[in-house]
């Protein structure tokens, strides 16, 4: 066979294979969105690939069953935004301390933080739950948000990033100008590290938005449920035959994430790649 033909054939095969895989990957997401607009009867009749007109009635069914999607959306949003702010600020603060200053035990502390990444949250969750209930912080978002002050993986990311962008001369110039150390961090280094902070922020946001286990353990009042917690209740008996409504609930938790993903996929993809290659 002539080599050019062989190459083209090879390429065509790869495309066909990838496109089939892509369809299998994306069909569940597409079906989820489509089914959110279809009535339960339509869904039960069979597989359909095009949107229908029952979104409003599905929403009404959810409301009638007492499932307040906007409320869940709002709760998830508050938690995710606050967690993101805390994670990004304190991780960069910690990483800055590790990169810029020399002090005893610095190396050990950094290694310790790396080891901490490996420690499963299960090891602390029971003790954590106990403390939070003693402090009256169960069923309070603070118990979900505050632990991010001492994130481990985020510090690792922030430190790698800072090392690649930090400019010692700028810090020294700031000192000569009489800026305080904290002022230098806030006004000089943080703006320089903004792209990294932004990437970390997206990861924190998505992580907090998707977090189910901790919220499920700590939050008990239905009004305070996050979206994944509400979605989880859709599985219950109350919704047994309301497929359209179930899919609408699912779509509500998925669509914001997909929008964020398409807006910022460049940051996300490069952030993951960076973590892997740094090693």
């Amino acid at each position: 066979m002539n080599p050019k033909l062989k190459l083209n054939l090879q390429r065509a095969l790869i495309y066909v294979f990838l496109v089939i895989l892509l369809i299998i990957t994306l069909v569940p997401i597409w079906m989820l969105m489509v089914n959110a607009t279809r009535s339960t009867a339509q869904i039960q009749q069979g597989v359909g690939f095009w949107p229908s007109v029952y979104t409003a009635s599905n929403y009404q069914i959810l409301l009638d069953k007492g499932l307040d999607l906007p409320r869940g959306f709002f709760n998830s949003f508050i938690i995710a935004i606050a967690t993101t702010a805390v994670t990004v600020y304190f991780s960069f603060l910690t990483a800055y301390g590790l990169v810029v200053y020399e002090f005893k035990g610095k190396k050990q502390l950094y290694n310790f933080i790396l080891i901490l990444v490996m420690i499963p949250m299960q090891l602390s969750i029971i003790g954590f739950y106990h403390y939070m209930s003693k402090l009256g912080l169960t069923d309070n978002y603070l118990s979900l948000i505050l632990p991010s002050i001492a994130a481990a993986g985020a510090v690792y990311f922030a430190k790698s990033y800072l090392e690649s962008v930090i400019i010692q001369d700028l810090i020294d110039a700031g000192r000569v100008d009489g800026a305080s150390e904290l002022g230098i961090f806030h006004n000089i280094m943080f703006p320089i590290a903004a792209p990294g902070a932004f990437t970390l922020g997206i990861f924190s946001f998505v992580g907090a938005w998707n977090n189910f286990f901790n919220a499920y353990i700590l939050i008990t009042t239905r009004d305070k449920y996050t979206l994944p917690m509400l979605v989880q209740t859709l599985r219950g008996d109350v919704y047994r035959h309301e497929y359209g409504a179930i899919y609408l609930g699912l779509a509500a938790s998925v669509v914001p994430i997909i929008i964020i993903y398409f807006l910022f996929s460049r940051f996300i993809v490069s952030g993951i790649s960076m973590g892997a290659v740094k090693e």
Partner: protein
Amino acid sequence: MELSPVAVNTKRIDTVKKRNRNGLTPLEHEREKWGYLFLSPWLLGFLLFTLLPILATLVFSMTDYSPVNAEATTFVGFSNFATMLTDDKMWISLWVTIRYAVLAIPVSFIFGLVLALLVNSKHLVGKDVFRTLFYMPSMIPVVAGALVWAGVMNTQTGWINVTLKTVGITGPDWLGEVEWIYPALVLIGLWGLGNLMLTLLAGMQGVPNELYEAAVIDGASGWRQFRHITLPMISPVVFYNMTLMLIGAFKYFDLAYVLKNGTGGPSDATLFYNLNLYKNAFTYNLMGYASALAWVLFLIILILTILLFVTSGRWVYYAAEVRK
């Protein structure tokens, strides 16, 4: 007036003289103080939200603590750990976790590797598009993904079985039969292997092109290039992912919990270690026993990680180390 170099020198000698008892100049001492100040929020957070809870879990693991009857808590020594040895559920959960890991890790790994290789192939146009779209499901909340797949795998209306029916095959009850639940979970897991794919891809793109060029000159086939260049060069990323996947199996919870309503069914086939831990702690309120389970979980993960690290010297190749 011109500043004489001599004056500058004396000044420097002055500062050197003023070293304190740690042998630091005042400036260095000041900087050290700032270092600790920058780290103090993290340290405080770690103390409050990680260290104290972990120690509490350790203490609980030696008691029969239950939040519904906290006053009656007594110290029971290591009897929780002894109970574990005869607790059928604990052995089942360990076995379930191992069975899943043994199936899921190789399958996901091979699948992720093939996907990364394909997306990385030389003449592919639109790499970024494929990369972006294949990663997308990893962003979706596991809880939502679980319910979506429960629909896809529905015996009657799910499109997998509907498709199978058109070619005359009666599809299985994916989530209801013991022999199909693991393949089903692995399949759903494949949906979210975007992280694996992206990290492997990043590793592949980091392999210097000269290596391949040299191999082509030497007449190495595609397979031999993969086996002797790509695979060794990406072995650190492989190692990183192996560790993550192993730990992940022991932390497995959301999917099993949502798909099977936390029952662990069919016949305990989805009673993962972490689900068993959760049920002991928060359903049966046996927090003392659950704390012991948590510590054993930690020890298992620790041992596995150490084993991986010890063997990694044999198969993980760090290019940078050799260059030194």
